[in-house]
């Protein structure tokens, strides 16, 4: 009996992970395939990586994706951190629970709806005030800020909630004005959470296809959009190579974010408040 139990668990585990990762591994393996036919192994080669570098459409799209991701992640980190500060440090007030929930709601909002509503907003704004003029990199960035800000807010908020509030009181007691205390104490202590929020926002922006397709315009195609349109015409090996590169970048980002969150929490232990 004792031996069967782990065997069962291990096979479940193996099956589960296979389910998750075999497709991804296949893509990565076939990116080194020399053959032009996607599903037939023709020997090891790096030629598709080389060809990627000469594909102007893909380079342009990658460059746009990168720019949008950096800008939207940065803006989302600033806004999300501010939102988290306001939500956790304004004390108890009516409707706080509602506001906290509303910040997190975009996390579960169907992307189709977010995309549709943003498109509607941009179109009517253009009609009303003439800005944003047309759709392109700007509208994509704005949309990415909207949904990734929610992620940053949730991450920073949980860090703030776990932080010992007496640290801020102590700084204020020593003569720090609320603004200085936020700069001197709060921000340095939530910095790991902000960084991990930034990385997550960056990744989300790099990945996003649905919302981006709604709000982009002619001449502004992000990398996922290019891949999607190319795949519709049939699989080509250079897409495998591109996908492999994206997987590596995203994995690095997520791993960094996770590491930052963990080490940030371990480094500044929250002091348990004893009775008083």
């Amino acid at each position: 009996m004792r031996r069967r139990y782990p065997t069962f668990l291990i096979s479940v585990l193996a099956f589960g992970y296979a389910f998750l990762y075999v497709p991804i591994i296949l893509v990565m393996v076939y990116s080194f395939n020399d053959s032009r036919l996607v599903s037939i192994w023709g020997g090891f080669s790096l030629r598709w990586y080389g060809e990627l570098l000469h594909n102007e459409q893909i380079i342009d799209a990658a460059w746009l994706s990168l720019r949008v991701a950096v800008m939207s992640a940065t803006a989302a980190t600033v806004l999300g951190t501010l939102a988290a500060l306001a939500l956790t440090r304004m004390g108890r007030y009516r409707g706080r629970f509602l506001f906290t929930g509303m910040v997190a709601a975009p996390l579960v909002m169907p992307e189709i709806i977010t995309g549709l509503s943003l498109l509607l907003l941009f179109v009517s704004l253009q009609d009303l005030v003439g800005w944003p003029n047309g759709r392109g990199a700007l509208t994509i960035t704005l949309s990415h800020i909207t949904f990734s800000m929610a992620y940053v807010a949730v991450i920073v908020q949980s860090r703030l909630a776990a932080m010992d509030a007496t640290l801020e009181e102590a700084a204020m007691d020593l003569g720090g004005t609320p603004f200085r205390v936020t700069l001197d104490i709060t921000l340095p202590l939530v910095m790991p959470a902000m960084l991990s929020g930034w990385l997550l926002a960056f990744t989300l922006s790099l990945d996003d296809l649905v919302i981006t397709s709604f709000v982009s315009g002619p001449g502004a195609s992000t990398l996922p959009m290019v891949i999607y349109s190319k795949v519709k015409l049939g699989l080509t090996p250079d897409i495998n190579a591109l996908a492999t590169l994206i997987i590596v970048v995203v994995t690095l980002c997520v791993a960094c974010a996770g590491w930052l969150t963990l080490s940030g929490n371990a480094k500044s232990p929250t002091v348990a408040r004893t009775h008083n």
Partner: protein
Amino acid sequence: MSDSAKPPQRDAARANSRPWDDPGQKPFVQITGLTKRFADTPAVNDVSLDVYKGELFAILGGSGSGKTTLLRMLAGFEQPDAGRIVIDGVDMTLIPPYARPLNMMFQSYALFPHMTVGQNVAYGLRKEGLPRADIRQRVNEILALVKLEGLGNRKPEQLSGGQKQRVALARALVKRPKVLLLDEPLAALDKKLREYTQFELMNIQDQLGITFLVVTHDQEEAMTLATRIAVMEAGKFVQIGTPTEIYEFPRNRFVADFFGTINLFAGSVAALSVDTLRLRATDLNGEISAPASGCTTGDNVWIGVRPEKIALAKTAPEGAPRNVFKGVVWDLGYYGNLTVYRVKLENGRIIQVSAQNRVRSSERVAEWYDEVYVSWDAHNSVVLRE
């Protein structure tokens, strides 16, 4: 910071002066009618208090007594619903925490984890905008005072509990506040360290002459540290006085019971003479003598006796002392320096007696189930009317 800078106030306090009894003295911290409600229940209810310069004042109370709320209002973290706080003649009620001339030592110490010890201590001075050289000098001075020289570059996580406590103290003292607030300053230390730190705190207070206001739930801490103690219960002060006054002359049963151990007997006054009353105790077969204490015959009162004021012997005491009762040793606890006996009297009532172990011996005055006599002098009875 040197010994010669010892302020005269503290010397006066040393010489047993009692500024609180001197109507000519002006209180340094003046709290009047302070009230704070949380969701309609008052945490602090119309509290008034005068603390004098150089005092080491303790506010003592159990959890939920409102002592922490009171401290937080003094520091400025809570806004009172009513009342005033005046420090050194200046109304502080509406001043934000960062502009008040007082500093606080937090129970959790609240050391900034991303700063070194030196940076922690220097933080308050940097906010004052002092020149760099002055800051360095004052940080070094205060670190020397709390015996932490050379640890300025450590991070808080590299310090022991006692060291953290001293960094917190140094950080709060370095700005030379008019009043230092201490929230359970010794609660997180182990027993040996507490005793040492307690005297350190008193010495430091002595050297700097800063008025200390300590909040604690530990009556022993309050008793040994403080010049005066305010006992707080349900948002109000029950009694304010010196440790001796509170221990020996508690105002009511709550204070008597909260502050140390006491045996309490209920009864009604049966007879009165000039200076003694005789109480017919309802839970004791017999009468107890006590100081008259302004009672009249028929009054229902309580009489309290501290365990160490009761004598225990195997033979009936000679002469005709009052308050002699016979019983059996029901339980005993040996503490090394003293032994605590729980004696079951003839009517089943158990009273506690503690005896100093003055003689080095493996024998005790009495053992389990020995028949013993307990007795105490009439003037050791405390009469409590509420």
